[in-house]
């Protein structure tokens, strides 16, 4: 058992290392030929030799963080409601419903966004064409929500039943039990749920590609159009084959990997910190 898990860890680390080596190898010519300042600039204008990826970094972070925030709050609320619900057919039905939501392909959410959310935003919320961080963030929160809520529900279900009984015996309300006992007890699981959601949100390509508008300008508000690093990779990969612009997709990949590591590291740190 121990050797198996060691083996799995080795394979996973080797995989990650391989990806890193591959990315650096392909990004190297661009990293050597152009100062980092150009790559970390705001302007993407390959015809003029400017390969600034900062707008895309901003796009990725704003869409992923917005989606994770909304999705996480929704997931926590629903999981707590589930914890308070009596077991029965309704609960079963709802649980299965969430499973189904999680199994719907991302592109379907994207289409719903294009057909319903974008025109609605254009009419009521956004001064502009509707393709925005807000549109992508809202739809993406729906995409990542089932993963987080299912994980939280399952974790909460594994709470020793005596905890609730003791709280009741002390005269505690359900909400006092949830806030004072349940949430602190599952601090780790909540962190993992957050990690899972954030990882999916950072890695998403389809929703951002379909809904965020993919504009190259630096976004200044959630109602602005933006391009994520993943969408940038998808759009560029189609177009070119051997130019510096094409090579920049490997730099984009490196940045994406770096951002993910930093954000996940922060979650691990928060999880371990004493309350």
């Amino acid at each position, binding site marked *: 058992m121990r050797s198996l898990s060691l083996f799995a860890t080795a394979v996973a680390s080797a995989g990650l290392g391989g990806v890193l080596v591959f990315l650096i190898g392909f990004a190297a010519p661009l990293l050597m030929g152009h100062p980092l300042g150009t790559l970390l600039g705001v*302007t*993407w*204008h*390959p015809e003029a030799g400017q390969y600034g990826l900062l*707008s895309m970094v901003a796009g990725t972070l704003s869409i992923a963080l917005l989606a994770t925030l909304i999705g996480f709050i929704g997931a926590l609320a629903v999981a707590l409601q589930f914890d308070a619900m009596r077991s029965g057919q309704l609960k079963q039905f709802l649980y299965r419903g969430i499973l189904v939501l999680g199994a719907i392909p991302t592109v379907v959410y994207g289409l719903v966004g*294009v057909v319903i959310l974008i*025109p609605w935003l*254009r009419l009521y919320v956004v*001064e*502009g*064409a*509707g*393709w925005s961080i807000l549109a992508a963030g809202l739809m993406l929160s729906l995409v990542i929500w089932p993963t987080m809520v299912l994980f939280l529900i399952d974790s909460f279900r594994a709470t020793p039943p005596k905890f609730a009984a003791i709280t009741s015996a002390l005269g505690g309300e359900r909400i006092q039990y949830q806030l004072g006992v349940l949430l602190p007890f599952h601090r780790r699981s909540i962190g993992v749920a957050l990690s899972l959601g954030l990882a999916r949100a950072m890695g998403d390509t389809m929703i951002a*590609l379909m809904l965020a*508008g*993919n*504009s*190259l*300008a630096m976004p200044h508000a959630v109602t*602005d*159009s933006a*391009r994520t690093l993943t969408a940038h990779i998808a*759009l*560029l990969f*189609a*177009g*070119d*084959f051997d130019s510096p*612009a094409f090579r920049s997709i490997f730099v984009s990949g490196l940045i994406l990997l770096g951002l993910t590591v930093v954000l996940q590291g922060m979650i691990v740190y928060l999880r371990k910190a004493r309350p």
Partner: protein
Amino acid sequence: MNKITVVSLAASAILFAGSDPFAGLSGTLRIAGGTAHIPTMKAVAAEVTQAHPDVKIAIAGGGSGVGIKKAGEGLVDIGNAGRKASDAEIKKYGLVLHKWAIDGIAVVTSPENNITALSRQQIADVFAGKVTDWKALGGHPGAIHLYTRDAASGTRKVFWKKVLHKGTMAPNATVVASNGAMKRAISGDKGAMGFLSAGFIDTSVTGVAIDGVAPTHANIQNGSYTYARGLYSITKGEAKGLAKAMIDTMLSTHVQHDIVAAKGFVPVR
């Protein structure tokens, strides 16, 4: 003789009138790339596969850049492009270009917009981000929502060269990934301005007249609308087998007159 055979025989008789490039062939033909090509090629593919059930034709989009790249790397049998492949691309991959239609590049707006004519300079100013309100163009006040295509788009490359004279494009434009997506986006957004293969224009979008010349079929055909480009199907080396049959079919009198023209493009023969 069953009904299907009769229908397919009739279809092939109408389609090829004697010489059938697909006669005796079978297998799958893979096509990808330019999105302006798709409606025409799908219509042709439907006729071909109906007459030849052993032939399968898969048509995907991606953009002209994708068509050139995939054809060059042998991932598809035919790569479509709405622009000429560059000399570097032709040399690197040994590509052969087959032009089967001429297509206009139109500046399009929503039918709800009252602007139907602009000068080339006005359009260049709008796409450069210098003019941002419809009022400055004589329309109802309101922000202009700019739409553009991704780097793989041949339509974008030709538009940039011929209409914008290689001028700057505002970075805040919304990027869509195909002519179909462009049409859908423009038709639903009354503040929109974008550019589109002229063959895609119907009642859901307005083709704006540039310097007084509208992007109509007649104007593209007689050359007075000069913002035009060829639609190419590209093979790695000379076309062979199914790819050759498809290209011969695209250039046949029936397809050129009855399909290419009907889809809004100008036949080359």
